[in-house]
């Protein structure tokens, strides 16, 4: 797990079984701009799967970006999932009051 967003190798176009994008360990304010860029970049994918298992720090700006990304995907009728969310991630989302909405996309 790293502090930067790992870029995933472009897969074959149209492949639905793409590997999840691992979210970085630290999702604090300093990572927000980069997270947004990454989310915009993968928005073009046919489906978006985020692996939140390694998240050890969470922040409001990053939660906002993930919510916006989820809504964008929904608007575009694309599958969006957050998988294996760490306890810390779940707690933060709950504390912020976003659990109800994000639960739709969490596994």
């Amino acid at each position, binding site marked *: 797990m790293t502090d930067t967003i790992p870029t995933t190798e472009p897969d074959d176009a149209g492949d639905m079984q793409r590997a999840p994008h691992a979210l970085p360990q630290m999702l604090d*304010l300093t990572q*927000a701009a980069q997270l*947004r860029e990454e989310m915009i970049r993968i928005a073009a994918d046919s489906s978006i799967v985020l692996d939140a298992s390694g998240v050890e720090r969470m922040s409001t700006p990053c939660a*906002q970006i993930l919510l916006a990304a989820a*809504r964008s995907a929904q608007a575009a009728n694309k599958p969006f999932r957050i998988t294996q969310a760490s306890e810390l991630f779940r707690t933060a989302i709950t*504390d*912020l009051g976003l659990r*109800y909405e994000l639960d739709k996309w969490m596994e």
Partner: protein
Amino acid sequence: MPVSSEQESYPVAQFRKTYFEECAELLDALQSNLELLSSGQEDDETLHAIFRSVHSIKGGAGAFGCTDLVAFSHTFESLLDALRDHKIAASQEIKQLLLRASDALADIVNAARLEHQLPPNFAADTSAAMLDALQGAGQAFEVPAGSAAVETKSLSEQRYRIRFRPHTEMLKKANEPLLLIRQLRKLGVLSTEVDSSSLPALAALDPEAAYLNWTFTLDTAVPRGAVQDVFEFVEDDCDLDIELVEVAAGPVEAAPSDAGGAVATAVAAVSVAQSIRVDVDKVDRLVNLVGELVISQAMLTEQGLSLPADKYPQLIQGIEALAQSARELQESVMAIRAQPVKSVFARMPRIVRELAATLGKEVRIVTSGEMTEIDKTVIEQLNDPLTHMIRNALDHGIEPPAERAAAGKPRQGTIHLSAAQRSGRIVIEVSDDGRGINREKILAKARARGLVPAGANLSDDEVDDLIFLPAFSTADVISNISGRGVGMDVVKRNVQALGGRISVRSRFGQGSSFSLSLPLTLAVVDGMVVSVGGETFIIPLVAIVENLRPQVSEIHPVVGRGHVLALRGEYLPLVYLHRVFSISDAIGDPCRGIVIIVQSENAGRVGIVVDELLGQQQVVVKSLEANYEPVDGISGATILGNGRVALILDVARLHEIDIRGTAGRLPASEDSRTEPAKDMIHAA
């Protein structure tokens, strides 16, 4: 920025104090509701109320690190929860267990308040019994720990609605709402609603701008200042609105927060009466200030009377309006300080339970009129005499079960505790169905001690009254109801110091009934101003039945008892005020003066002979006990509109003083009790 007007910061000690004050109220409520449950009221509302009390105590305990309290109340609460969900039946054993747990909880709260260390295994048997009951019903039980305890921590009394709207730039200054929300969560039970409707599409989103707004509902024991302190460092970077919504009325589950879209408003109806917690000192100060205002107003009114009404109509009208407003203000202020006697009554069942267990007796206590309101100053003084009377009833009134059975009574004795308002006073009765007063024994003992002259022929009431004499309070007691080293004389003295009276009625073999009569407030009284010789007195208006100037033919002498007034077929004893207080230059003939007929609890109707009536007035009572010393026959003093001090008569005592002064049938020591009154009158 629209923040709350309350800017005070509250040190932790203040939160703690508030918490324990609330605990006392919650424990009282718990006790009352458990009593209801015990008496068969097993409805959901009662069970919820019981649960809520324990739940709230636990909630605050976590915040102050009272681990013993959290642990015990968690077990207690789990049992109550199972009971509430009907997973455990409210059997007699469970009810007894709940009562024991409530007693233990009160002790643990008290120990936490005083920071005393409890014995290591304190209430371990009660805890174990509760766990057994839970396991017996197949209920899972989780020990509260860490965040789990915080999650289950629940509401206390205040509910705040907090609207928090970060300014766009707030996040860029490294202010993280998540941390604030977690701080808030530590204060109580938090429910979070987020409004994410301002969140733009991903492409238009500034990654470091704030788009979310929150509305929190916080049930907490801490004051508003503490809630506001959470936002101390972001005050300039957000819109904050903290609103006291209500006194929390029901358990609110700390459910996952609400929909991300529109904010659901008005979660909790604002229908429940709002209340604020005010330091009693502040209210007392207000009461005193209003008292001074009333005195000033009375002085103005008196000055106004000497003005020609046609020359100063507006001034006189203004004075009248002021008098009206002053009276309303005073009533309103006094109402703030009034409390139901429930707070005192709620403590009695435990005393009964514990003492009954110690004495091996079976006793139940039945209370009524708990919601009768009385001034806080009186309530505070009520606990000791009441406790003593209850203990006496249990210890000496109620017989052991076998003895009761032999006498054809139910094995379980009953103590009735009731409160009611009567003639502007509160009357509290403690009655039992025990063995009653054995008058023969009391009289024999009193004679042996020289308290009653050998030839004296006492009525039943007079014999009963002997138990209030100091000599009966020693350990060597034969009375069935006095005793225990501190006797009924102390109770009587305490009650009299409050401007109250105590009396007893008893039937041998059937029980006794003690009646306490207390003023509703110690602060103001509506009085009739009368003059005797050169002195001015106040007679409380509530005691006065009528005033009249009798005919000579209506006055009859009674040997050794002075005079009586024949009034519509009834003979009323006459009390000459000038004789009671040794005032010269007074009108001695009732046919030339005025007779004021007063009603008193113990002496029935009595005629008080005075020179003339000066008028009615509301007067502010100044305590003689606090400023001088207690004076028999006088319940207090006041300052009149002309600036002079007038004494307020204790009408119920006057007749007794007059009888003893003239007939001298009871102990000689009683005769000298009006001496201070004479001094006082001359000093005034």
